[in-house]
């Protein structure tokens, strides 16, 4: 990975979010002792997914944000739109796959999950969306050990992966410095 697709991504701060308890609650769920799943909860699941290329999370790179998430708990539907840092990002499918896998692992099986690129954010938007929506393609892809380990690296706890990526970044810098002199 010697050339990054986007060598200078814009990095944002991780937002601190305070959950405001709303008065409007689904009484049936309360009776069950269950809080309805909302956009913030989904965001909490995905905000710290690592970008495959850079030592930052998807939130920090503004690839995902809370307002690009729609949830209908009653019907069991989640829709996430994500925005790659550049329009021709070849990592878009991998990011989409990581989002899908994370949510599949975290949400009850009754949820139908739709992952799409934000409209206009990618040059092959329709093609990427179609792949991400095809569950047979997704299932087969995840049986591929190389791809699965790439996904798992994105999903691994931030510290390990960030350290790894930062080390790689340092090695690149050292390499460049060495060749420059």
């Amino acid at each position, binding site marked *: 990975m010697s050339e990054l697709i986007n060598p200078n991504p814009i990095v944002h701060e991780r937002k601190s979010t305070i959950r405001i308890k709303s008065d409007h609650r689904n009484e049936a769920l309360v009776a069950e002792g269950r809080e309805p799943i909302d956009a913030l909860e989904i965001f909490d699941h995905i905000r710290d997914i690592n970008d495959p290329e850079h030592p930052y999370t998807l939130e920090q790179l503004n690839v995902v944000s809370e307002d690009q998430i729609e949830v209908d708990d009653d019907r069991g539907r989640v829709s996430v739109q994500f925005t790659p840092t550049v329009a021709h990002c070849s990592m878009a499918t991998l990011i989409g796959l990581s989002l899908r896998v994370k949510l599949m692992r975290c949400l009850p*099986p*009754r949820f*139908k999950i739709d992952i799409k690129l934000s409209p206009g954010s990618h040059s092959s938007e329709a093609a990427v969306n*179609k792949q991400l*929506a*095809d*569950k*047979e*393609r997704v*299932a*087969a892809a995840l*049986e591929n050990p190389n791809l699965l380990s790439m996904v798992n690296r994105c999903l691994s706890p931030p510290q390990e992966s960030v350290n790894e990526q930062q080390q790689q970044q340092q090695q690149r810098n050292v390499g460049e410095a060495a060749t420059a002199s």
Partner: protein
Amino acid sequence: LFQPCQKMDCLSLELVASLAGHQDRVWSVAWSPKGDFLASCSGDKTVRIWTRRAGATSPPAAAAPSAATITGNDSVNPTTCAGSNTIIGAQQQWYCCAILDQCHSRTIRNIAWSPNGKALATASFDATVAIWELAGSVWEQVAELEGHENEVKCVTWNPDGRLIATCGRDRSVWIWESLPGREFECVDVKQGHTQDVKAVRWHPAGELLVSASYDDTIKLWNYDGDEWVCSQTLGGCGPGSGHSSTVWDVSWDPDGQRLASCSDDLTIKLWESRAAGAAPGPGRLAVSGGSGGYGGGGGLVPSRPDLRCGTTLSGYHGRTIFSLDWGPTGLIASGDGEDCICVFGQGDPEMARVVLRASEEEARQGPAGTNTSSVSCDGGDERRGGGGGSGGGDTTEVDPDDGSGASGPDADAGVSALRDDGKERLGKGSTGLRPGQEGQPWGLWTRVQSAHDADVNCVRWNPAHPRLLASCSDDRLVKLWWLR
């Protein structure tokens, strides 16, 4: 999106068995040719074969280790299900009689029985197809078909058992010949689809193969004496020409005259021969077996397909339709990503209910029961081409260019609600029970919401018991349904 119509309540799909055992999502189910066994395949890399305990209508005694029978489920009270049909008891004792494993290294996506019921083919994401034969009481792998570059998605035997067709993500359709001594030879590899091929199915007369693809098209393939050629492509020529997204499954009607397809574009399309309008009435569709019975009198000629889209069923599914099956009764079942199973029929479902009830009576009385003569249909007050059958969705029908002879209700022609020549019995051949009314608009006759707890991946009608439907799902279950 969808407004159920009162007429829908006259027919229902009743759950008769819920089969657990698979350790991962179940992708496909396939009935043996005689309808006595059901094979299912799964992401757990195994095939399970299910059958019914002979004669049992009471709960089983201590379950054997391989028996994985769950009858009914929480929402169905077995005692209230005790129905009037004696052909198959309302509480069916299905169990797993065989597990085929340790063969494929990845998901098994599809299975197919050979026409003589003695062999099974399995298609896997590991890029191979395995052929199995029953040796005594044990299934053994006897051959392996290698060649696809990556995931194989579908496998199907042709009606005379000589050929097998496969397809996969490598965009190709392969045709294999079955040779003596359990040898298989690849006789052709067809490129043509520009993307992943999801399904292949043979026409009941043989001679014609259909493939369905992620490239939104359906292709028809014929043998020209030398090689297989693509004789027609449905769709892919811009808007309005066919499906607008991945086509997942295709199915021929029992007469081999029409093709149904289902898609990620949320519609089902019914395709028919351009020549179909010429000779209306049930007579021309009589099946006498062999290719001589097909295409007579202006219908589809399998060796020269000329299909066009006659009907689109839209508004009935909210998510991808993964599977459909056009059963021996002429009814179409579909399974979708909203966990639903739908059944579509032509004409008036109330009529169908009468017919089904009559056939139940007949079956109870035994073979000596009298035959119902053809019943003229008075539900045909809608023009062919009129909107909406009995469902709330939008049924659009494209009038044929040359004008159809079947344009209006024709009570005197005796559009048969029950096609019965006196020799055919329920469950015997495709000219048995036909509750639908030919030439009438299509409508949704029944819909099971939450048929499963997850996506329904496959639905298949039993070839011998035409009211029995099998389904399978991401919820790891196989379910059996009875149409009442």
